[in-house]
């Protein structure tokens, strides 16, 4: 869990140095290690200048997350996007990206990334979009266009790093856009800075309260924990304290076990609370099987009872054994 405790700073990602200018000047930044030149650190945050070409963005953010090795609690991208459909464009405002789509040429990439429940959808293009037909084509999928979001999504998904994207919207007239952006960079950088500093980016409420640091979950265990926790909260109306109390968290914490073993114990208890009928069913089934094992049978059974087949082997010696076997099979058939 040490890595979790270290992960206290956000990584702010900008495509262009000019957009980051006010941040670099105001936050007392210093270049970081061999990535000096595009990665900076300040007491409040890390700052990465990613470039805007999708490959460059992917390699820089990948390098950077690898180098910082879990010191990043979340990635916040503060960038620019072109408003494709005027009624939704909201030029001059800053909006959060909801779902990010991608395309190269006129072909869309099927995978998409949903980052937020609110905000505008955005499409990342692998090439610079200038022609009217291209703009219309992309506008049918999303109201905003940029060049970097998709790469950020891909890398952050791979590295399980939380990501949020905020975009300053510039006008859709592509031929003016570059000019407009260049002359406005100072102002845009200031707006992004104020946005980050003041309105900021409301913390997303954490619905699932993680247990204390001496209980460790792997990714798949964390998923199960979320499932059981949600059921107990929603179905049984339990608070976080009540859930932990019922699960005997304190008692588990006192035991001389590794953090992961404690995590397993906690999960078992939560499973029993979330699915009592299923728990009882498994107990009964396992007892039944145990009687076969005691009689010298080999029984191959996975813990979750979520497999298609049950492997049993032994020689049937007498009718009592046959009965036992049939009983176990009947029981299994009920699954």
């Amino acid at each position, binding site marked *: 869990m040490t890595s979790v405790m270290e992960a206290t700073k956000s990584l702010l990602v900008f495509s262009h140095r000019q957009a980051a200018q006010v941040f670099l000047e105001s936050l007392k930044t210093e270049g970081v290690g061999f990535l000096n030149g595009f990665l900076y650190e300040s007491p409040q945050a890390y700052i990465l200048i990613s470039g805007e070409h999708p490959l460059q963005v992917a390699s820089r953010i990948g390098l950077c997350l690898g180098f910082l090795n879990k010191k990043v609690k979340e990635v916040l991208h503060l960038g620019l996007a072109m408003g494709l459909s005027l009624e939704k464009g909201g030029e001059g405002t800053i909006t959060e990206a909801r779902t990010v789509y991608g395309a190269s040429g006129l072909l*869309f990439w099927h995978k998409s990334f949903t980052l937020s429940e609110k905000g505008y959808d955005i499409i990342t293009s692998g090439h610079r979009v200038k022609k009217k037909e291209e703009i219309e084509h992309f506008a*049918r*999928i999303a109201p905003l266009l940029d060049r970097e979001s998709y790469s950020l999504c891909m890398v952050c998904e791979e590295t399980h790093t939380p990501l949020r994207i905020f975009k300053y919207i510039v006008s859709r007239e592509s031929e003016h856009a570059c000019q407009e952006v260049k002359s406005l960079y100072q102002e845009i950088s200031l707006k992004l800075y104020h946005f980050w500093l003041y309105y900021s980016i409301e913390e997303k409420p954490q619905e699932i309260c993680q247990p204390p640091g001496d209980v460790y979950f792997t990714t798949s265990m964390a998923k199960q924990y979320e499932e059981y926790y949600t059921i107990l909260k929603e*179905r049984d109306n339990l608070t976080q304290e009540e859930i932990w109390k019922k699960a005997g968290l304190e008692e588990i914490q006192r035991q001389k076990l590794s953090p992961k073993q404690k995590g397993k114990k906690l999960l078992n208890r939560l499973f029993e609370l979330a699915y009592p009928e299923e728990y009882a069913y498994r107990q009964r089934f396992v007892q039944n099987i145990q009687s076969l094992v005691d009689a010298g049978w080999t029984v191959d059974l996975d813990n979750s009872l979520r497999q298609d087949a049950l492997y049993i082997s032994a020689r049937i010696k007498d009718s009592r054994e046959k009965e036992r076997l049939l009983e176990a099979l009947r029981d299994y*058939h009920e699954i």
Partner: protein
Amino acid sequence: MKFSRILVEKAILNENATQKILAKLSSCPYEVVNSYLDYFEKVRKPYLHKRTNLYLYLAQKKGELVKEAPNAYGTRGESHFYYYNALNCIYECEYCYLQGYFSSPDIVLFLNHEEILAAIEERATQQPGRIWFHGGEFSDSLALAHLSGELLLFAEFFSKRPRLQWELRTKSANIRPLLSIDPTPNIHVSFSISPPSLARLLEHKAAPVELRLRAARRLIEKNFSVAFHCDPIVAQPHVEEEYRALAKSIAEQIPIEAIRYISLGALRFPQGVYDEVRHNYPKSFLFHQYMIPSQDKKMRYRKYLRRQLLQKVQNAFLSSGFLPEQLYFCMEDDME
């Protein structure tokens, strides 16, 4: 219902059916495209975007227009097919399998109705005996019927072919397009129903169950053949009481003998749909009971639980005067 964008295929822009729909939705501007396939499912559009950003495509269906239905679908011993007249639905049922079926919630209406009927005819000639053709496998059959406007044409087709059975499945009460039809015995309408309290929790935007029952009664009065699907049945503590109340309420409004059948099916999902539903509705009441992958790879309750559940619901109907032969278990091959 409000669409955020309408995309129309160039080839059908000037068709009557297209123009009628565009006129009815005149407050929403439309754009002309070559093919709906250039956009629909080209990117993975999250299911819940249907709440705020739902597109309507007006298109022609090419390729397979009629498809064989899986075993255990509908009544036994007869052939069942469904035809493609639309994809996706304006309602939002939390258990809807369409959310894992298409990678976009956008609605597609296929307006080449004559070609769909020709495909039905062709299928029918290859098969002796009674054959069923179902609408609504990939959408709700009636929810948008006032827009899509194919029902009269289809009714005329089926009324001349008594061997072919036509079934419309719905969770709407949108029966007005049917009222001008003179029903023949091979035209069937079935309503999916649940206890009202559950429907309110799980079937967002669909017609309230009370209205579905009223619509069913009107159709029966007009001599339509009407059936009900109690599917999915979701495990919950008061299942028997809830279904008893539902059965009673049906029996009070509709002559029992006029109901063709009531199918009963326990909650189940193909694995991909299960994951998608969990993702979209992590807090849903649907997940309060444990589910496992069963032999057919669908996520289901354990068999003992399914048996209990279906028996309770069956009892609820039997004790309200329904006949055993009116009730059948759907998609539960080894349950009887």
